[in-house]
């Protein structure tokens, strides 16, 4: 979706303000919101792309004034409610008012380190061959799906060069809607700063994005 998360190239947010000796968390509730989000992935049964969509799927005015853990927490609540695992009246009461729904698994303390260490690799087996090779010129397609996508607006329609064939990876655009992993070839595509930002742009900069094959179309060689 062309939502508030797609920030590349926007102006007006002011300078970056690094915080010296920044703590990992800034409040007790951030710790709990972070841990709840990680732990609920297992019984909740959603995937990372569904989580990302739940975070970005809100009004820009809200998104841009919330802290990042507030966004995470709001997304967690939304996903829990969507699946009927928790209801508003229970959050208001601060207690469970209905029996739990059966869930596949709960994260036990004994499994935490194992689960973190395993992570969630997204590379999949395939018999197909990638359409593009390093050095190929490609154009990022102009797409505007109302659902989740990982093709940022600032590269759409622009010409780039394939740097690397990364592998065959889960396709977020499908995975986020519950349509399955639908893995696709993934590439690193590099764009010159001037291609993206115009002839007044800095000639010494380049931007690389990772782009799945459905985001790309062949472009004529130079």
């Amino acid at each position, binding site marked *: 979706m062309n939502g508030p998360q797609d920030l590349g190239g926007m102006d007006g947010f002011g300078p970056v*303000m690094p915080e010296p000796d920044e703590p990992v968390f800034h409040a007790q509730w951030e710790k*709990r919101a972070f*841990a709840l989000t990680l732990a609920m992935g297992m019984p909740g049964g959603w995937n990372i792309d569904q989580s990302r969509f739940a975070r970005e799927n809100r009004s820009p005015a809200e998104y841009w004034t919330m*802290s*990042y853990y507030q966004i995470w927490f709001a997304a967690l609540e939304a996903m829990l409610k969507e699946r009927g695992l928790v209801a508003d009246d229970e959050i208001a009461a601060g207690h469970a008012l209905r029996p739990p729904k059966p869930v596949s698994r709960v994260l036990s303390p004994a499994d*935490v*380190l194992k689960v973190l260490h395993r992570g969630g690799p997204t590379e999949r087996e395939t018999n197909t061959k990638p359409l593009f090779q390093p050095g190929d010129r490609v154009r990022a397609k102009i797409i505007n799906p109302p659902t989740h996508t990982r093709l940022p607006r600032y590269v759409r329609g622009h010409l780039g060069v394939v740097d690397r064939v990364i592998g065959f990876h889960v396709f977020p655009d499908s995975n986020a809607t519950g349509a399955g992993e639908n893995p696709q070839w993934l590439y690193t595509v590099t764009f010159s700063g001037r291609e993206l930002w115009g002839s007044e742009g800095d000639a010494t900069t380049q931007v690389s*994005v990772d782009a799945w094959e459905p985001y790309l179309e062949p472009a004529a060689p130079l």
Partner: protein
Amino acid sequence: MTELHEHHHDHSELSETQLRVRALETVLTEKGYVDPAALDLLIETYEKKVGPRNGARVVARSWVDPDYRARLFKDATPAIAELGYAGRQGEHIVALENTPKLHNMVVCTLCSCYPWPVLGLPPVWYKSAPYRSRAVADPRAVLKDFGVTLPPDTQIRVWDSTSEIRYLVVPMRPAGTEGWSEERLASLVTRDSMIGTGLPKSPRDVK
């Protein structure tokens, strides 16, 4: 610690969030969906154990061991796993080599993708709109916000983490560190130098 970025919010809103998080944790615990001891362990892991010291060890190793360096740039995920770092938000890592001609800088314009096993959780600025909006459009201006000025002819390559690939910048080894131990070298490697918004410390900055 105080809540620096929360000063933007008024206190009633802050306590409302606090209360709501607590309420949800209670509901989820009562329903048996979460085990609070598992939550404590998750927090402890990312607060105390996983952080940029991990990445610094990888970088320092790459400065002293040419074979390791070659493995790191060929396929970073197994090379980093040799030091015991792997897993969530670092399932597929690519190491980026800074040279006198090329400076790499990492961003996630769409959310907050960051290589957790080697850098820990991202700082607030990395997840914030100012960084995410400008890193791809004007990286030199962003570097200035960090007090970094690169030679005008250095190429800057910005990596937007749009997939599950996570990027680790390997900064150049500072001059004047000949003969230093790996551990001493690691003390020069800052978090920001591995994101590309900073440079390693100078040997003069550490004893």
